[in-house]
């Protein structure tokens, strides 16, 4: 079994969780006897190539081996992402506008044809353009390596167009992997409709859609209208190989309850603060930490001040690398009150560090973690009660820490990717 995989990032240079997940998947697939060609927009050369051959899209010129420019364009024409709105156009005007647009695209394409495009591979301002270019290059790469793979696998909306282009040009089946959806990224009102359209397009064009949790699977079916038979859940795993738990010295005797993540609407920071206020009303000897940054940070700080708990509630700002590890090591309780979380790997990290975790039922991780404490994100009473219990009943803390540690260590990518392999097999039939 051979797979052509489109990703956006790959360790060691990662900004989000997607790269880490891709790395785990590629390694797990290798263990299951699946060969992977991993395409990414901007590779720096120090990626671990032991499990997959990595192709840097920035090194590949848009070039077609067997098809003419027109045919190529004809297949991937949808790729151009225009945001031109044309109000009140009559049919004649509209068709001439479309023709005009097509000619402009062909011209555009002829200019870039045969040239390389330097991707940033980041999530910058010209993300949409990069996504479109990535599809062009992706199509080219698929044609060049046509005989070297059986299945195409695309991770998240950034790579869906590349996946579709590869499918159109080679006729091989496409699997798209939904790590997150637009509905998880923002509140209902401020969804980016362009992203939403790409997601829908990708899921519709795919032969199978892989969702990271049943929660996400539900969103694919109910919000994107995808046929339930086509959507499969493969829960994420986590790779802790080579990880040593670090020892840190504590400055305070108090118990530390931690929130770690982006401080955005989706992560539910205000529920954490409300629960903290409830706990602090009844208990001494406990401190709360909100680690991370985000667009709701100043609001969160104001909320803490308003509730009068600033002396026991601390903000760390954005943490990176080893500081994240250190923060977990300093914590006694970890809380992930996400409003919507496709999976949520952070409680697994916390539990791996021996920190009992309270997670919202609206997270994919809640589907696999038996030994995490689960509450509805809005149920601050239950959240406060769990925090109080973990701070005050040592037997519970010891039990949850030990069982949780064993549990997350047993979640392996080899198991998840074995299911992924079955998905590949199902689209090849």
């Amino acid at each position, binding site marked *: 079994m051979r797979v052509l995989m489109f990703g956006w990032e790959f360790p060691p240079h990662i900004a989000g969780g997607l790269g880490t997940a891709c790395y785990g998947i590629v390694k797990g697939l290798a263990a299951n006897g699946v060969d992977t060609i991993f395409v990414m927009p901007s590779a720096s050369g120090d990626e671990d190539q032991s499990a997959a051959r990595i192709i840097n899209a920035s090194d590949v010129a848009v070039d077609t081996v067997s098809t003419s420019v027109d045919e190529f364009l004809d297949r991937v024409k949808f790729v151009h992402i225009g945001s031109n709105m044309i109000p009140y156009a009559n049919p004649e005007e509209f068709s001439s506008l479309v023709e005009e647009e097509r000619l402009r695209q062909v011209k555009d394409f002829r200019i870039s044809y045969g040239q390389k495009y330097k991707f940033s591979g980041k999530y910058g301002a010209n993300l949409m353009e990069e996504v479109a270019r990535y599809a062009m290059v992706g199509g080219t790469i698929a044609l060049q390596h046509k005989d070297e793979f059986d299945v195409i696998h695309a991770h998240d909306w950034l790579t869906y167009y590349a996946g579709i282009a590869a499918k159109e040009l080679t006729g091989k089946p496409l699997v798209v992997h939904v790590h997150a959806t637009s509905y998880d990224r923002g509140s209902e009102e401020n969804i980016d409709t362009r992203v939403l359209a790409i997601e829908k397009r990708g899921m519709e064009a795919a032969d199978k859609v892989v969702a990271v949790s049943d929660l996400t699977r539900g969103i694919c079916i109910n919000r994107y209208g995808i046929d339930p038979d086509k959507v499969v859940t493969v829960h994420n795993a986590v790779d802790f190989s080579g990880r040593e738990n670090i020892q840190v010295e504590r400055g305070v005797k108090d118990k530390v309850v931690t929130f770690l993540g982006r401080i955005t609407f989706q992560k539910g920071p205000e529920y954490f603060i409300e629960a903290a206020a*409830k706990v602090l009303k*009844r208990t001494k000897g406990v401190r709360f930490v909100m680690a991370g940054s985000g667009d709701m940070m100043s609001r969160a700080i104001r909320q803490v001040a308003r509730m009068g708990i600033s002396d026991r509630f601390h903000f760390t700002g954005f943490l990176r690398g080893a500081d994240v590890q250190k923060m977990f090591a300093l914590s006694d309780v970890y809380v992930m009150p996400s409003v919507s979380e496709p999976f949520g790997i952070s409680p697994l990290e916390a539990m791996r560090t021996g920190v009992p975790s309270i997670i919202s039922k609206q997270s994919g991780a809640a589907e696999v973690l038996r030994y995490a404490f*689960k509450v509805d994100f809005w149920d601050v*009473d239950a959240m*406060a*009660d769990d925090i109080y219990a973990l701070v005050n*009943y040592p037997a*519970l803390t010891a*039990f949850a820490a030990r*069982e949780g540690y064993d549990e997350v260590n047993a979640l392996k990518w080899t198991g998840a990717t074995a299911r992924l392999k079955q998905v590949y097999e199902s689209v090849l039939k």
Partner: protein
Amino acid sequence: MKKSICLYFQVHQPTRLRLYRFFDIGKDSHYYDDFANRTILRRIADKCYLPMNALMLEAIKAHGGQFRIAYSISGSALEQFERYAPEVIDSFKALSDTGCVEFLAETYYHSLASLASYSEFEHQVLKHKAAIERIFGVTPTAFRNTELIYSDSIGQQVCSLGFKTMLTEGAKHILGWKSPGFVYSDASEPRLKLLLRNWGLSDDVAFRFSNRSWDQWPLTAEKFLSSLKAAAASGDEIVNLFMDYETFGEHQSEGSGIFDFMRALPGAVISDGTFEFVTPTKAARKHKVSDELDVPDPISWADEERDVTAWLGNELQQEAYNKLYALVEKLSLAQDPVLWEDFGHLQESDHFYYMCTKFFSDGEVHKYFNPYDTPYEAFINYMNVLSDFKIRLDDAISHGDIKFAARKEIEAPIAAPSKKPRKKPVKKK
């Protein structure tokens, strides 16, 4: 001599705790979910206790005293009957009046006191005995411990309380090659006769009756009689069928035909003539002791393991149990009957059962009876209640000390021994 069938039904309803958050600690000392308790009790009364009692009464009358059964009704259940469904008590009285029904003694609160504290155990057994005498006007002479828990040391306690007959599980790991179809005796107290549950035949009715994938389905009185006779043919003198009364109409729904089965069984057994129905006390008198049983570690009728791990298997359960029974000594100083009552209800074995983390083998059975989603919730709720109880207990004792100190000053001239005033209230209780 005819072979014996001994039918005993357990009647118990736990006093379920309400959702008790940590902010309630020290503020609200009503611990029970009266609504759930009433609703559940009313439902089971209508589906099981009332129709089944009517059916049993009918059977006893139809067979002119040849049909005999035994009940053990926990004090917690009696309290709920008196409060929510007094007609159930009346129907049990009607059964008692036939003279064909034996009522067994047990711990009033269906507790694990036999494992924890002899004084508490004795207190509860006597309290239960008094309740049975008060309600039914009969004095129990045979004993069954909570969930048929038994060990050599429990046997000694039971014997010292004056019982000559005790019921327990025919646990395979204790019996080895021996059959539960004989009467045994306690290893150190030969006067105490033991009746052992035939789990295979009991579970045919209690668990497998409505299981359509079971090869004996549907179970009829004739089929069951032939199984009974097969046991008799292999040399068994007695078949002990011990089960929860809620089997009839609750665990096995009316639609499964369980009532028809029970209606047909007495007649089938009596007209066949191989067996006669006996109550536990009669059985112990009728049959000779065949051997003594050595049971160093406690056994019970629960789960595959037939031990006490369903209640005390993990450290959450052990913690809650230890914290609870650590209060016994303090409580003996308090004279508040309300505290004693709460202490009793908190001892109900069910609270510990809800904290069980055996998710797999017997998880289904555990889930069925469990008002909590997770063992964590059960533990946290219980510990919150216990924290409040402790505060009340400490308050009661410090108030008592103040009163005691005051009285001592007045009584000082008489020079009363300091222990005397304390002893008095203990006697009262």
